[in-house]
């Protein structure tokens, strides 16, 4: 027998679909130009020079993790785990963007484009700024909603518990 829907359960569905859909889109768009994405990771200057060989690996793996986590979230399969992965990525993105903005403020000549959605760069301009942080915070809130009240309606997780 299916578990009864929690009071906030209906909020989970739009969060799952929008957040998961955005991550699938972000992953697919990054795959269109992996070279540009690798260069964008490099420009963040987060990875030390002696570990630069990791950047191409990250450039290949990250879009696929986004696609899988996003697709699982939309389908409601392993909803909480998908939301956890996506939320962890969002926290990392926010920290990385904030570190770039702080370093620019301190006078470091960094020139970083987000490449978060590949060439689409939606809804923020390509150049890093507070817009990307706010966008990620909104998505992080959606991730938190899914983590708290998953799986919500129309989820494979829910069907499998019947």
């Amino acid at each position, binding site marked *: 027998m299916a578990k009864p829907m929690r009071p906030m359960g209906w909020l989970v569905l739009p969060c799952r679909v929008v957040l998961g859909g955005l991550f699938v889109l972000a992953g697919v768009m990054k795959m269109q130009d992996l070279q540009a994405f*690798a260069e964008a990771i490099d420009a963040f200057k987060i990875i030390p020079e002696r570990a630069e060989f990791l950047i191409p690996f990250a450039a290949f*793996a990250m879009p696929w993790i*986004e696609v899988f986590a996003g697709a699982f979230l939309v389908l409601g399969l392993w909803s909480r785990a*998908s939301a*956890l992965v996506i939320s962890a990525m969002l926290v990392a993105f926010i920290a990385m963007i904030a570190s770039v903005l702080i370093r620019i403020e301190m006078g470091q*000549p*960094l020139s970083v484009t987000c490449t978060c959605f590949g060439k689409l760069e939606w809804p923020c301009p390509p*150049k890093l700024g507070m817009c990307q942080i706010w966008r990620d915070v909104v998505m992080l809130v959606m991730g938190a909603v899914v983590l708290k009240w998953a799986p919500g309606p129309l989820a494979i997780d829910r069907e499998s518990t019947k």
Partner: protein
Amino acid sequence: MASLLLYRAAALITLGVIAGGIHAVVREKPVSLELMAPAPLPKPKGAEAGPVGAEPVEKPATGSTTSGTGQVAPVTPVTPVTPPPVPPVDAAAADPLNVTLALAKELHEQGYVFLDARPLNEYEQGHIAGAFWLNTETFATPGGGEVLGLLDREMPIVVYCQGGMCDASKNLVRMLQQAGYMGGRIFHDGYPAWEKAGYPTAAGKPPIGGG
């Protein structure tokens, strides 16, 4: 329950890493952060026998010379010639992609194109005399096209930005290479080192490509 959540999250990440690994193997074009080495610098006019900055050096005479008749003629001892300083181009041969301050100065004197990859306001405040303004954001714009129209695809192009951790010149050289301009070189110390050395600078709007 929490451990199941973490196992599933780890499984998802592993799935993505495996898929990314397969993608890397099947993809024909590798992803690389390395820049291609540019073609060697052309020798300047009048110095075909040696690298830039190298003067012809006569070997010091030692002891005596023999004339055509077989007689030994005494010669005045000659002070050994001090070897010339290492010409900048030798350094360029060792690291063809990066340009030192000394070599940048030499290339500037020879009239090679300099590109300033910094933001427009920094260019307007001060730039290397004669440098054009082009960066990764303006590369594909009509203004960027104007600057690209002036460039020769094989000739050396010196690209600089703010020095230090500035990546703008590296990124611009990469874009130039992708567009077929293979002479791009990075003046890593950038404008601050040039200005500090007291070399020629200018200020004001870019002559072309300024939007």
